[in-house]
């Protein structure tokens, strides 16, 4: 479970980038964050793992023993340990291009194993097997030994998800994971994320309201740093028009063609 309370970020000139955003996400939920460009979607996601210095606000993350920790008010060591259980995937995949898919998956656990062992010996057979089964879950086992540079966008994103899985996270955050994918691969990735949300909360930033309506269990819409909607994934057209304004023609191009 993750709980964001009064997330606020104000620039020195007084402009509010995040304006009092609060929400709570628990296991079984696949939360999609929607909103026009520059609304503060990615900033919200970044503040959830403490990568953004907030002006005000707290983020509470559940530790294994039912204990909740505010990531903005904890020691660096605790935060580091907490991060080993938060998986991240990005639009740009952020994988090591010259390493194999399997090696990239294995890297997901670098934070959890001892630095000394990972520098001198590397990963053991048990971990390699587990990484293989993570790849199997995203249907990529046949490309385990392929260099990431030789994979397609959809395949790279599936490797990134396999890495996230191998991390055995308590939470998965995805920053525009399907924005650079073709429609078919975007649907595959959304399907995988939906499946994973039964294991741990999944929070993603998206630009595709229609896909979110199909796969997410809940939507939060952000406009000008403010939460303007929080509820079921299917959004009415009038609401979408309010959220996106002129950008609507770009996010739902099929409807506005011609």
């Amino acid at each position, binding site marked *: 479970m993750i709980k964001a309370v009064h997330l606020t970020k104000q620039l020195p000139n007084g402009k509010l980038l995040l304006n009092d955003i609060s929400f709570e996400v628990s296991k079984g939920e696949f939360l999609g964050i929607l909103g026009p460009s520059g609304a503060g979607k990615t900033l919200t996601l970044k503040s959830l*793992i403490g*990568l953004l210095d907030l002006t005000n606000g707290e983020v509470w993350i559940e530790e294994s023993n039912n204990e909740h920790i505010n990531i903005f008010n904890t020691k660096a060591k605790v935060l*580091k*340990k907490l*991060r*080993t259980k*938060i*998986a*991240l995937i*990005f639009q*740009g995949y*952020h*994988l*090591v*291009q*010259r*390493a194999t898919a399997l*090696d990239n998956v294995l*890297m*997901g656990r*670098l*934070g*959890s194993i001892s*630095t000394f062992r*990972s*520098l001198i010996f590397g990963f053991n057979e048990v971990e390699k097997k587990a990484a293989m089964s993570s790849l199997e879950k995203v249907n990529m086992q046949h490309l385990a030994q392929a260099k990431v540079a030789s994979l397609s966008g959809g395949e790279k994103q599936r490797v990134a998800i396999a890495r996230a899985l191998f*991390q055995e996270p308590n939470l998965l955050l995805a920053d525009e994971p399907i924005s650079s994918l073709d429609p078919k691969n975007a649907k595959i990735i959304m399907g995988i994320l939906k499946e994973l949300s039964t294991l741990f909360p999944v929070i993603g930033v998206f630009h595709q309201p229609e896909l979110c309506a199909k796969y997410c269990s809940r939507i939060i819409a952000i406009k000008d740093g403010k939460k303007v909607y929080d509820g079921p994934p299917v959004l009415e057209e009038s609401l979408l028009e309010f959220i996106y304004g002129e950008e609507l023609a770009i996010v739902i191009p099929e409807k506005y063609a011609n």
Partner: protein
Amino acid sequence: MKTFLMEHKRWFQTLFVLIGMFLLIQYLKIDLTILLTDLHYVVELLNEMFPPNFEAIWDNNKVLNSILETISMAYLGTLFGGLIAFLFSIIASNNIFNFILIGRLAKLILSFIRVLPSLVVILIFVVAVGPGPFAGVLTIIFATIGTLGKLFTESLENLDPTSAQSLQSTGAHKLQTFKYAVWPEFLPAFISNLLYCFDINMRAAVALGIFGGGGIGYKLYLAMRVLHYKDAVALIICIIILLLIIENLSNYLRHKILGN
């Protein structure tokens, strides 16, 4: 007057360059007529040089040894220089080493090393450790640190930072991200620059031999000194073939590595 100057700008520029050239030739007291009056010396020298005396090379194991000596100098110089340059470049790269001031200092030291000409450095080392291959190797190490330090730093700083950042965001240690994210992406640049530098250092090893660094360069120097021009030409041809082989080999290996 001003418009006249502007209209014929090109002519005035040319005139300016020609006058400058003439003045500099006067300043250096270059007597161009020597080229005409003493041309027969060049012809005589060429007469003495040909045919090259290759027997001097095959008859004398010392020459083959000196070729091996030159290759060894370049190899050892590149290897140790490359390793030290690598350590320097890690410190000098802003994206890997966080202490920016120390990084600046490392970059400053590297540029200081680069501006010192090798021919000056070898003079110092010859005085310090005596003439011979050791002075040559030390000089090559010195030059390699300067060259490779810069090349390595540039390739490290140009790496895509996102893969390392994504590992760090999952709690990985800085050393872990270096081994798993930075090193694999840096490796091709590392090896290809090493090979490129080995190629440069072969040439340097020959040239440094003349200044007391040992190897085939020193043999060439001796042959010229005792006026054995036929031996010298044979040695020069030998050097050209050797350098061509090394250059092509290093190019071939580099393309093979970068191709993957």
